[in-house]
């Protein structure tokens, strides 16, 4: 329950409409896209300016009320589930593009702008903002920054962290800080910009961002390589990188994923293939031609059954959109899809795929695998049913082994989805006690009373075993 005095002050800041504590609003802000998690907030607030965010934070600090800032809540780590109640701060109203600076090639935006709307706007200026998370049609730029979202173009262009050069953010105290700016170089002190990127709303509330834009590539080609042998596809990935070609996109989809994606997007994909690589190269027309020809040779040397280049841009876009919907489309098989985010050095992709399949067989569970193969970032995804307790237990066991395999191969517990709630107990396993100590110190410096997205990133207990189901 929010103290009535605090609620009154919050209403006074944003207006009656934009603070809600009715049952409907609370239920509708009790979840994000992470399966099986739900927890009620005590209030929901929709600010429209940095000043409002600052005033709100002063009230919340005074009353010791937790706050969870969010965009569209499409994250997959439980990052925006209000586990300790408090106020959910929805950033949708702060969705303006404040400036596109054509001399410096930067854009300054409010956090609530939808990623796809932003990129479309930027393209109308003949410019390019590469980060393209799978959820870009709904995710917000603010959310992308908070989670340091990856995407299909991460291999060649990097992820969100490589394009954010300045931030405005509100601290727990209500004070406003500015980091970076329209500068390509800046070594004045610690890099607070980078620190806030991927901080999952635990350090400050991002209210404005300055983003780096780049000239768009002159040409682009998209191709599909189809394999009857799963490992042939995985080996192709390493060989492409080894041959010193960095494609813009290099995605891996296994058979179950191909089937559901095709069922949704009606692409006419070959349903009898064990794996597909979706490859895109961009750049100068000659380079693109040369790279695509060379990649085709590599695919064939690894016994690809068929290699096809998309004839039109629409066809290519359709393929990419279909890939972006893979996770949700897997819900067509079974109601609950639990997606993981195992990342290994990219030379180990074939080994990792092999291990995942062995583990799934051993525990008698169905695990579909797709992901950004070029980044070594795989998404083994269990298709299951939350109502089947026994199966859920076997899924837990399988994921525990998958993570152990990932760490053994030199990988990590999350490549792009973040720690949030789901991975919090394993953070120490990845970064070590000293690393975790430093992180906690940083948290303390920004948010001494632990009001910003509490319960995330740092868990009360550390675990090595993966437990997908809470409660």
């Amino acid at each position, binding site marked *: 329950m929010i103290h009535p005095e605090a609620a009154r002050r919050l209403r006074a800041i944003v207006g009656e409409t934009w603070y809600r504590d009715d*049952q*409907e609003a609370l*239920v509708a802000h009790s979840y994000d896209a992470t399966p099986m*998690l739900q927890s009620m907030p005590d209030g929901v607030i929709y600010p429209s300016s940095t000043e409002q965010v600052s005033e709100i934070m002063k009230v919340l600090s005074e009353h010791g009320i937790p706050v969870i800032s969010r965009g569209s809540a499409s994250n997959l780590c439980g990052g925006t589930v209000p586990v*300790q109640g408090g106020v959910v701060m929805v950033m949708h109203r702060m969705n303006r593009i404040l400036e596109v600076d054509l001399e410096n090639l930067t854009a300054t935006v409010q956090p609530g702008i939808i990623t796809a709307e932003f990129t479309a706007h930027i393209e109308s200026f003949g410019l390019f903002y590469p980060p393209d998370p799978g959820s870009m049609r709904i995710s917000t730029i603010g959310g992308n920054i908070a989670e340091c979202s990856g995407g299909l173009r991460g291999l060649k262009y990097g992820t969100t962290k490589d394009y954010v050069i300045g931030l405005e953010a509100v601290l727990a105290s209500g004070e406003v800080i500015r980091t970076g700016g329209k500068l390509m170089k800046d070594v004045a002190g610690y890099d607070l910009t980078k620190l806030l990127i991927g901080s999952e709303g635990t350090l400050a509330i991002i209210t404005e961002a300055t983003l780096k834009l780049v000239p768009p590539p002159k040409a682009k080609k998209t191709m599909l390589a189809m394999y009857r042998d799963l490992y042939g596809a995985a080996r192709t990935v390493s060989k492409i990188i080894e041959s010193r070609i960095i494609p813009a996109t290099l995605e891996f989809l296994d058979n179950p994923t191909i089937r559901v994606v095709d069922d949704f997007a009606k692409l006419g994909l070959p349903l009898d293939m064990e794996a597909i690589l979706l490859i895109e190269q961009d750049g100068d027309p000659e380079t693109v031609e040369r790279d695509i020809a060379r990649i085709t040779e590599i695919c064939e040397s690894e016994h690809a059954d068929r290699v096809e280049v998309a004839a039109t841009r629409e066809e290519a876009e359709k393929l990419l959109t279909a890939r972006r*919907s893979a996770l949700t489309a897997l819900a067509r098989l079974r109601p609950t899809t639990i997606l993981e985010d195992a990342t290994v050095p990219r030379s180990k992709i074939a080994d990792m795929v092999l291990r995942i399949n062995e583990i799934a067989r051993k525990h008698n569970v169905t695990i579909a695998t797709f992901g950004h193969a070029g980044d070594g970032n795989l998404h083994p995804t269990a298709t299951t049913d*939350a109502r089947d307790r026994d199966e859920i237990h076997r899924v837990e066991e399988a994921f525990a082994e998958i993570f152990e395999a990932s760490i053994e191969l030199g990988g990590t517990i999350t490549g792009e989805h973040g720690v949030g709630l789901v991975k919090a107990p394993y953070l120490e396993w990845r970064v070590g006690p000293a690393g975790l100590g430093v992180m906690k110190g940083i948290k303390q410096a920004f948010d001494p009373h632990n009001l910003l997205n509490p319960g995330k990133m740092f868990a009360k207990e550390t675990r090595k075993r993966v437990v997908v*189901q809470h409660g």
Partner: protein
Amino acid sequence: MDKLTAESAKPAVRHENPLARALAEKLNYDQLTNCMRCGFCLPACPTFKETGMEPESPRGRIALMKAVADGLMDPDEAFQEQMYHCLGCRACEPVCPADVKYGQLIEQARDSIEDHADHSVPVKGLRKLFFDGVFPHRSRLKWLGRSLGFYQKSGLRRIARGTGIMRLFPEHMRDMERILPEATARGVVERIGAFYPAKGKMIARVALFRGCIMDVLFAETNVNTVKLLSEAGFEVVIPDSQVCCGALHAHSGELGKARELARSNIRAFKEAGVDYIVSNAGGCGALLIEYDHLLHEDDDWREDGAWFASRVIDVSRLIAEKGRVPDFAEPAGEDGRAQQLLITYQDSCHLRNVMKSGGAPRQLMNRVGNVRFVEMADAGSCCGSAGIYNVTQPEMAGRVLERKMDNANRTEARYLLTSNPGCLLQMKLGIEKHGAGGQMEAMHIVDFLAERMAAGKS
């Protein structure tokens, strides 16, 4: 303390509240669970676009339904109202990778509310009058047509407006009164009979679904539909015992009534022995094509439902895909030269999202000589008409319409075509309230094509 709860099996909740119990029983729990909450539906939802608020989105509404079924919240008045805020346009369905049947869920929710709500949602009485009293009865529809036609023609309308008596009605009802076309008791059968032969070699025998509102307010469109079908090579019959499709009932939670109507229609069309059942109203067509789903729990009617559903097709699609597309051309102007005409198109949500036939109208429009088709931004997003939504939820309908008209005006089109009577009325209203320059006119695509067919032949 952590308040996290696990969501898992359908909980064995004992619902004290009768509405909560009804919802828990009627809502398809598999569909509720299938929603991954990925949020891909949010940008497609008109009410979310207007408000930016999660409860006003498909993901939010499903979460609310699930929370009631799980015993996490009461189906209070706000919940009930939220279920009616949805336009039912189903734009969320084609974009859902998980294939959640949202349309079914919202119908199940409304059905439970209709049966069990203690307090009436604002328009319940009005709805009851029309749903039970008028739509299902042909004779009463005719009476309505006659009375309304008399009112419009006799000068009563002028008197009513002159005396200011209309001011006693809410604004949105007055708006509607203004744009209603001339009503009539002379429907399509009274005008051209129940049978119309095919021109040239017959491709197939089809039955026209004439609809209830269509036949009172747009009888001319029904006549044009028959002529267009005949020209394209189809023999047309109009079974006389057909009734209202039941769409307005189903979408408002009167599923029992909708099923009754469905059974009557199946009986009527089975007797006609036709290859296709043709609809010229997206809203009706979408329910007709789902009669199989509507009756899937009815052992006696399941097969007939499937028989019926598999034959339903929209007039544009039938002509574009199976017919001989007639020559269409813009009639010549006074100087004998045809001007190039700018047209645009407002999708019927149900034609596009449920009947999956958004392409066919565009194909036909692009076949008309001397016409340039301009796509308006967001043509596939709902216009706010949505059955009787514009009467029951005037505020939101008004906001959605205003956005729609901004996009329509930007095309500078002379004609704004649609494929559904509700959309057509809404577009007429939109042009009257927000039209730019008084240049634009709304028209059913069938009427537009029928006019151009004559010109194409000459």
